[in-house]
């Protein structure tokens, strides 16, 4: 579709939704000082036009319902359709309703807290965090509060150099200085480096395990010991839990706090970027610092704030609609199903590795190690030998009906292609993906220029990122576009 912007439709005198009206005699008297004089420049369209427009846009979008999305660290598994039905049951409950009127909802939250605590080996969870990074941030604030409780000044937060960008960002938002821990040649936390930096200044260590290379930190108990020796808090980034779900639990490894992404591990759809839903769980030592959660007293559920709570993370109770989706997901898998998730996702990863292991130009760090939820190939050699980059491979995959892997992350791997197949892709799709990747690499050696223009089967070709980001052409809204068109945009608007 060559679909105009909704603001470019030329309709006038139309409405797409009828406002219900009661016959009420009330004069509208907005105080003069604040009364709006110019109606906002919104479209004037019929229901048909709006439906058609957004339907066409949806057809120009790609989700996991259309094809494999091997985005590493994003856990793009299939989202069972029953979840959507489930989420609807809570549509009309107000978050501030008398708790006696929403006992069913609270029971769902309570059950989820118990299940997630059990799966992570923690004591208690709060579902008040609307996403993973908010969970992470809550974890950071808990660590801060913990040390404050003892009147300690702890300024440093350790972060693995393979960590997700959110880890240092969250730490910084919480007022910590970030110290990166270098990985060793096996792609694991270097214990000696860790020993070198650990000390009384260290508030905690943020780690994902398996890490972003898909590797399990086999020295995790040693790491925990080192961190706990200085009463540091070991924090688990739950984004990578999928590969060990039902196999091993962060709590048993020595972690004190963990956040979960219900929209990764527990099948909640990503919504094109969100909404997600999170959980923040803690062990006995840290649970009193959690944000509010649901507690059960006899047959009655209610929200409580634990004694040393960091406080409210979101205005209400987090993304309950998505908690319901995850709830249906867990019900549908049950004990046996959940315990197969880690096994089947890890099996899929290593199956893909076996299929791709010998592809010319692609290399693996620590190739002898099995991966868990994901694997990172380096296309550095391919780039050197053909000029074709990880970026080009990504775009070429789009032309072949697949979404691209995560690329150029983690930064320690050059020309990284980070692939996470998940347990929900049928083996035939894994085969087709491997074949597509092989075909692309073959083409790179035969005719590299053929790849540099991909994608060509998509609705647009490669986009001009310079124009997109340059202050003089930056167009973040139609309002700005109009200004550019009216040529009234002057430097004063850019530089205040």
């Amino acid at each position, binding site marked *: 579709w060559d*679909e105009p912007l*909704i*603001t470019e439709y030329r309709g006038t005198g139309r*409405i*797409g939704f009828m*406002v*219900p009206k009661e016959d*009420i005699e*009330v004069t*509208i008297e907005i105080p003069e*000082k*604040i*009364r*709006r*004089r110019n*109606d906002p*420049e919104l479209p004037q369209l019929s229901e048909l036009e709006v439906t058609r427009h*957004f339907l066409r846009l949806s057809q*120009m*979008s790609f*989700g*996991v319902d259309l094809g494999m999305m091997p985005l590493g660290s*994003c856990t793009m598994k299939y989202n069972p359709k029953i979840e*959507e039905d489930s989420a609807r049951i809570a549509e009309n409950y*107000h*978050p*501030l309703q008398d708790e006696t*009127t929403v006992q*069913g*909802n609270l029971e769902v939250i309570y059950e989820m807290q118990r299940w997630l605590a059990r799966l992570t080996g923690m004591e208690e969870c709060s579902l008040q965090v*609307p996403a993973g990074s908010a969970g992470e941030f809550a974890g950071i604030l808990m660590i801060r509060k913990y040390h404050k409780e003892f009147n300690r000044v702890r300024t440093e937060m350790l972060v693995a150099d393979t960590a997700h*960008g959110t880890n*240092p960002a969250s730490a*910084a*938002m919480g007022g910590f200085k970030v110290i990166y821990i270098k990985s060793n040649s096996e792609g694991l936390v270097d214990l000696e480096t860790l020993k070198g930096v650990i000390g009384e200044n260290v508030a905690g260590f943020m780690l994902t395990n398996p890490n972003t290379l898909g590797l*399990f930190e086999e020295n*995790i108990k040693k790491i925990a010991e080192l961190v706990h020796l200085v009463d540091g808090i070991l924090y688990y980034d739950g984004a990578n839990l999928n590969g060990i779900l*039902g196999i091993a639990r962060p709590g048993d490894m020595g972690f004190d706090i963990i956040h979960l992404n219900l929209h990764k591990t527990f099948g909640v*759809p*990503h919504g*094109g970027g969100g*909404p997600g839903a999170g959980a923040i769980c803690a062990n006995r030592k840290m649970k009193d610092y959690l944000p509010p959660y649901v507690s059960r007293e006899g047959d009655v559920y209610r929200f409580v704030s634990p004694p040393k709570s960091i406080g409210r993370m*979101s*205005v*209400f109770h987090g993304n*309950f*609609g998505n908690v319901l989706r995850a709830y249906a997901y*867990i*019900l*549908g898998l*049950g004990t046996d199903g*959940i315990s197969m998730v880690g096994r089947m996702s890890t099996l*899929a990863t290593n199956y893909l590795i076996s299929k791709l292991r010998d592809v010319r130009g692609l290399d693996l760090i620590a190739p002898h190690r*099995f991966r868990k939820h994901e694997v990172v190939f380096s296309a550095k050699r391919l780039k050197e030998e053909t000029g074709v980059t990880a970026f080009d491979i990504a775009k070429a995959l*789009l032309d072949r009906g697949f979404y691209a892997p995560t690329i150029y992350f983690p930064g320690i791997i050059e020309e990284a292609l980070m692939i996470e197949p998940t*347990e929900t892709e049928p083996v035939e799709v894994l085969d087709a993906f491997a074949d597509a990747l092989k075909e692309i690499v073959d083409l790179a050696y035969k005719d590299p220029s053929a790849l540099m*223009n991909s994608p060509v089967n998509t609705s647009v070709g490669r986009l001009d990122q310079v124009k*997109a980001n340059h202050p003089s052409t930056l167009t973040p809204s139609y*309002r700005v576009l109009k200004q550019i068109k009216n040529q009234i945009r002057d430097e004063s608007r850019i530089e*205040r």
Partner: protein
Amino acid sequence: MDMHPWLPNLNQIRQMLDVIGINDVDELFYDIPQDILLESPVEVGYNKPLSEEEIRQRLEQVKQKNRKLKYPPFLGGGACQHSVPSVVKFIISRSEFYTAYTPYQPEINQGLLQALFEYQSLIAELLEMEVVNSSHYDWGSSLAEAIMMGLRINSRKKVLLPKSINPLHKQVVETWLAGKEVNLVEIPVDQEGRMDLDFLDKLDPTEVSSIYVQQPNYFGVWETEMEYIADWARKHNIVSVAGVSPISLALVKSPGELGYDIAVGDGQELGIPLNFGGPYTGIFATRMDMKLVRQMPGRIVGMTEDVKGERGFTLILQTREQFARREKATSNITTNEALVAIANAVFLSLLGKDGLRELAEEVYKRSHYAAKKMELVGKRKWRSDFFEEFVMSFEKEYNKIHLHLLNKGIHGGLKLGPNEALFCVTEVHSKEAIDELVESIGEVI
């Protein structure tokens, strides 16, 4: 486990192991120390995998454990129920949208990107501000991020928050700012239920990083000195932040026109069901001033061209973001509320210029109708004009009124004090419902 609809390869395990060259799935976990390997499965759910039928039955049970109300609750305090057009639900049920990821590959996600650009554009028109990000979690986190953005801009240590703002928003701000050295100063409320402007004169403005004002405020009352506050802030190089109810902007001046630096709010009003608190979406906007824009948190979609010169959309200014900038990022946010933002865009497109004004007027009328009726059984706490919400004082304890209403299947307002409650009335509350509410209160007064 034999077969499961969500686990396609259970009967291909052997074949896959053969390709890998091992005999057992457990070998893949050789590197996990024995003593932390689980010995038996963790019991979750109701143990056995439930069929869809059984899941639906369980959810029906959950619904039964909730109380069915006769009318939509008269509750606001950060979320008011509004009607949700069927088209909105229909569009966000398109799984090309809802099973997509953040559109890091723009070529294959133009539709999603354009929809988000349209969200930004429509909110920009409503706010009359040029730069809108493609969402935060909710109003509270938007506000917290706005204040942090202020701190990055001017490195001052005081933040002014009126007592007339939503206390839950304030609690979120307090939590989020725990790691910052910042002093949250409360501006008192005057006799009209508005922020007390005299207080500003008693401050040293050079210490103030940002000032926040909510319109209409927590009590539903219009803040009439919006322009004065923005001017005062500008004069003292203070970052001004306005919190707005999007629907009310059809009636009152936009933060853009008033000259605010940042605007925040919640998109819940724009086509999102109450959802027992979420998903909602945090609105975050600023002016087209690169000093502001560079400090802005969150994801932004921009317009550009492709290699053939055709219009295209892509994520812009990503160097502000955590995945690129790590600890130097303007925020840690990654997953946001994109789908809700698209719902907002569909909602605004449907109602449009005329519909939004009609809606705002209807909300105004019904809430005023209700407030007037209410004066038969109580007293309005503030005389000032208001929108959607208003505070009532009663002779009786509000708890007693509340329980009486609940017995009749009606959920009254939000208790603010022993004898006070905040009521929210919108276009979903029929005259009949309002009349019954008032009559029922009358029965216990």
